[in-house]
């Protein structure tokens, strides 16, 4: 059992409880005390992570639910507001995140094969893609700020696509409706993408930790649970964006509608 640490710098640095000898209860050193064996530990760790992801699904789910309710009530306003988003940048970002999911999966794959260098390489690539995504997001936020599209006092959605026929009460009311609905849309945009981005920052932090641990030989063919569940977290973040992109950027893009 102790031969699984061929990649470790020193056994004590890699073991979860370094002060116990290898003859303790006959279990492998990388298996914590409460588990029968590595398989049970891995199953428990995986279920634990999925339990957390279930709470995250409900967390983002609540925001999505509210989005759908308001989208139905303010469809025209949502359509007008969504047109202000740069669909091409959003598409690029979606592609970037999909690539980051691939690199993360490849990192887990490397871990499965016991290749620490592969872990470091692929997790670094994932971080790189994540930073590209966040950079594009920062640019988008800045652009929206300059366009007066941050909800609040100075919100101003130019209504060239809905030119009021006259300064009638109805036209004013309609413009009010658009203004209100568009602010609701952008509230969702900033809240949902902000929440998503904060999850990405946390993910980047965890991945940096993973790289450090991998470089120190913490992960082996028989123990790479942290890499696996970080992968689960990251794929979840990707899935959230997979839904966010069409709902925020592609509400109504057909010309002549």
């Amino acid at each position, binding site marked *: 059992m102790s031969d699984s640490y061929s990649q470790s710098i020193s056994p004590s640095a890699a073991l979860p409880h370094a002060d116990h000898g290898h003859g303790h209860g006959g279990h492998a050193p990388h298996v914590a005390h409460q*588990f*029968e*064996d590595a*398989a*049970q530990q*891995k*199953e428990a760790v995986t*279920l634990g992570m*999925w*339990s957390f992801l*279930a709470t995250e*699904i*409900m967390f983002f*789910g*609540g925001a999505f*639910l509210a989005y*759908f*309710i308001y989208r*139905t*009530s303010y*469809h*025209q306003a949502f359509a007008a507001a969504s047109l202000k988003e740069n*669909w091409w940048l959003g*598409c690029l970002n*979606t*592609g970037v995140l*999909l*690539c980051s*999911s*691939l690199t993360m*999966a*490849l990192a887990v*794959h490397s871990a*499965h094969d016991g290749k620490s260098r592969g872990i470091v390489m692929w997790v670094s690539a994932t971080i790189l893609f994540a930073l590209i995504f966040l950079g594009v997001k920062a640019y988008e936020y800045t652009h929206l700020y300059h366009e007066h599209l941050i909800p609040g006092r*100075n919100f*101003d959605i130019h*209504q060239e696509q809905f030119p*009021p026929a006259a*300064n009638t009460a109805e036209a*004013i009311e*309609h*413009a*009010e*409706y*658009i*203004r*209100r609905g568009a602010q609701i849309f952008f509230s969702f945009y900033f809240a949902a993408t902000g929440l998503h981005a904060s999850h990405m920052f946390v993910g980047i932090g965890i991945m940096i930790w993973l790289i450090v641990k991998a470089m120190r030989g913490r992960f082996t063919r028989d123990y790479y649970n942290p890499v696996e569940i970080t*992968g*689960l977290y990251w*794929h*979840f973040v990707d*899935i959230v964006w*997979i*839904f966010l*992109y*069409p709902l925020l950027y*592609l509400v109504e*893009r*057909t*010309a002549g509608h």
Partner: protein
Amino acid sequence: MNTHDSSRPSPQAKLNPTELDYQSHSHSGGELSSEQNPHATVSLTAYLTVWVVLMVLLAVTVGAAFIHMGPFNLTVALLIAFIKAILVILIFMHVKVGSRLVKIFVVASFVWLGIMFVFTFADYATRSQLPMSSGWLMEQRPLSSGWDAQKREPAKGLVKQSANP
């Protein structure tokens, strides 16, 4: 790389309840209860194939958005998104080769999400139009008591825009 479907328990595990699943006797895939195969993994080919499919579906999402389908634009967009999510969950997140319990956890998460959606939509869909709220289908009628009900000045788009703040 092997792709194990470890969701089918071996007959031994079912007939012998005293033999706990968590006690491993060997690490060969057949003898160990297939619920707990720690070496099950997804192949490199599967990862790359799914990635290509995801990118293609992204292109389809964008393309479909520019085709006029009325209310079905949303349906198509969500359908494609769900397919992408399922691919990520099954392949990237290893749920396809995971134990049945993991699969149950995943499905349960979405069941709970579904409960929230179904009940909330049912609530809104069965409301009659109340005079003081915007209701479900009163798209053109703004809220009569909104946060900006006090200032009923015309929207900025209609009047000459004041100097940039």
